[in-house]
């Protein structure tokens, strides 16, 4: 019995140790978000899988993607690489998925244009609807009543008097 209790105690200690290790996990405080890094990082997607942010805006300390990415940007900037060259390096390594937004070229251009194409179509549809709805309905074909001229004059006179 005491052996079982010792086992349970040691299991508990192990769990506590693991939990405390978890607490201490994020040990890198170097966030590396200088304006220069932010400028490039804003163009790159954070691919940690837990957020939809960019390398510059990801705020997770334990992020396994954005922190090394920022360090890499800083290193490349020290070697004198231009912003575009740094972005190209990431694209070369991870493909177009490294970019925060699809490049406006080729098929991906459609990604940018489509919302505005849709709005344009919508506007055209609305304009057509306006035109259709503004058109008076064709009047029903009814034989014109043969109003006596004298009777019509009397109506007009009474209406004038009313006014």
């Amino acid at each position, binding site marked *: 019995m005491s052996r079982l209790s010792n086992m349970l105690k040691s299991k508990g200690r192990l*769990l*506590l140790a*693991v*939990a*405390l*290790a*978890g*607490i*201490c*996990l*994020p*040990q890198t*405080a170097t*966030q590396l978000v200088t304006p220069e890094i932010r400028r490039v990082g*804003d163009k790159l*997607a*954070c*691919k940690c899988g837990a*957020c*939809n*942010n*960019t390398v510059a*805006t*990801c*705020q*997770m*300390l*334990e992020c396994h993607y954005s922190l090394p990415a920022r360090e890499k940007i800083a290193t490349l900037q020290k070697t004198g690489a231009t912003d575009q060259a740094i972005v190209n390096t990431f694209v070369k390594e991870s*493909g*177009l*998925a*490294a*970019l*925060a*937004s*699809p490049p406006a070229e*080729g*098929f*991906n251009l459609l*990604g*940018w244009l*489509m*919302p505005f194409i*849709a*709005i344009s179509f*919508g*506007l055209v549809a*609305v304009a057509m*609807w*306006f035109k259709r*709805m*503004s*058109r*008076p*309905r064709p009047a029903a074909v009814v034989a014109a009543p043969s109003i006596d001229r004298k009777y019509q004059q009397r109506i007009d006179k009474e209406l004038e008097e009313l006014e």
Partner: protein
Amino acid sequence: MENVGALAILLAFCFAVYAVLASVAGKWRSNPFLLVSAERAVYSNFFLLTAASAILVYSLIAGDFRLAYVAGHSNRAMPTAYKFASWWGGQSGSLLLWAWLLSLYSAIVVFQNRRKFRDMMPWTVAILMSVQLFFNLLVGFVVSPFEVLVQGRGIIDVGDGQGLNPLLQYWTMVIHPPILYLGYVGFTVPFAFAMASLISKQKGEEWIHTTRRWSIVTWFFQSTGILLGAGWAYAVLGWGGYWGWDPVENASLLPWLTSTAFLHSVMMQEKKGMMKVWNMVLVAATFFLCIFGTTLTRTGIVSSVHAFAQSPIGVYFFSFLAIGIAATIFLIVSRLDYLKTESRLESVVSRESSFLFNNLILVASCFSVLWGTLFPVISEAVTGEKISVDAPFFNKVNIPIGLFLLFLTGVGPLIAWRRSSVESLKRAFFWPTVGSIALIAVLAVLGIHHPYALMSFALCLFVTLTITGEFYKGSRAIQAKSGQNLAAAAIELTHRNTRRYGGYLIHMGVVLMFIGFTGKAFDKDTTVEASVGDSFRLGGYEMKVREILDGENDNYAWRHAKIDVLQNGQLVKTLEPERRGYKVSRQPTSEVDIWRRLNEDVYVNFAGSDNKKAVIQAYVFPLVSWIWIGFWVLLIGTIICLIPSKVRLQYARTQVVGVASKQYVEVER
């Protein structure tokens, strides 16, 4: 126990099948016995799914770790509320929640209408139960929550479970999913009535009058669910983001956008007999987007085009969507003769036009979010290469659309139905426009040059002035007539037309939310490693680490920091963020501490510790509290909309262009 649960779902499936068949056959053969038995099958379906859900919840709370679902989503150390929340913490449980809520709604619909709409009800029941059938099929045969853990030929009990994801162990997460689901599932009811009216060839707006309250209530649940999710992300994820354009977040936004469009355009049908086809399209789009949202969150298709094939339920969801959309299109097209517009448009400058533009913008926004969410999958399918469509894309596309929508929120209510004269427009918009321009000038002088922020603040003021102007003018008129004070007159005004003035309050809530969103442009943050006694600065604050404490309970171990916040050398607040390490899941989480104020939140995250140093992330989020205040205003506005008006306004339909036809009928109750 698990056998009883599984049997209950199986029987519920059978009852759903019966309800569909009996409704259709009963209507077809004019057999009242079959129709009544179909309605009773709806009640039976509800009781059986309630029993199945109760068994699952009991198993989660009691810790029946022979069940795979319980072992995967509950554990002994979790508080009871979170054990209960595990019901919707995983795939099969959340699908059971969907099925149960739909059965509840269906039972309410059948009970409420047991003596009404006898022409339409059989079809309504058939449609509700067809959707029910689909979800019963999933939880009964594809992803059952009552599967047991098996080793060899024996059932095994693993003793303890993995527990709910620690990030989900937060109070809003206990209510966020069911509330969002109440909204998602709830839109099945207006959809069912709309389709039933098409099948039964109803010419009038009966389905709209019947489902108006359903639509508003479910829209409110959708709004609340989205806001609770945003509140959870803000307070739990540790970096103060409340919206990240994540596919799951987008999935909740899509039906909200179309249902908002529907709530506006439905007024055109009620008042003018216009846009009947469009309303059918919107109600159907909202329903299918609710199903699509569930598909997105449950199949993982957005992570990759290949995830679709990996998910056991993806094929079922897409088949259901394909069949449902095809049937709906066929139904609408075949009933176009019954959906003819009854009125003409008299002027482009009219309330009708503003509703139309409002609908266009809401649907365009919905499309752009849907497009951005799906474009990685489309692009991968076409080009073979993965791409990312993250927050920058959505912000670039949706911010201008959102600002235009905000503009329409202010303009729409001031334009009269049928036509507005240039003079009346000048009168209505002069002061709001002057106020907005003046605000831009003042803010620019104060150093705010962010173009979108300036536009947003100006439009917020514009809409606020138009709404308060409407309240003021109406209240003054009542005050002059009745001699009441202005506040009592405003209440009387609102009571006389709850829909209109409740709607204005909802608009006001949206304005307040936009103020909060705009604050995002001015966020400040810093990350430091600090020992006890160290201090650092952020914005106008000095922060000093006073103490770091350790501890543990059954569920997790924790490390806690006490950070004094000083302004001008004076202690103004002590914030106590915490870092937790969950024992079973071995996952760390952050419990941030937030000093919430109207002008800005001070937000501190204890992100970890390195020897004797604490890693502290501190943020200042200007105006963010207005998002939550806006939600409460929206809540009050929605409740007001649901209260019957004291005075009923009836508008005769305009049949011929140029004939004044507004009739005002007062019915004092």
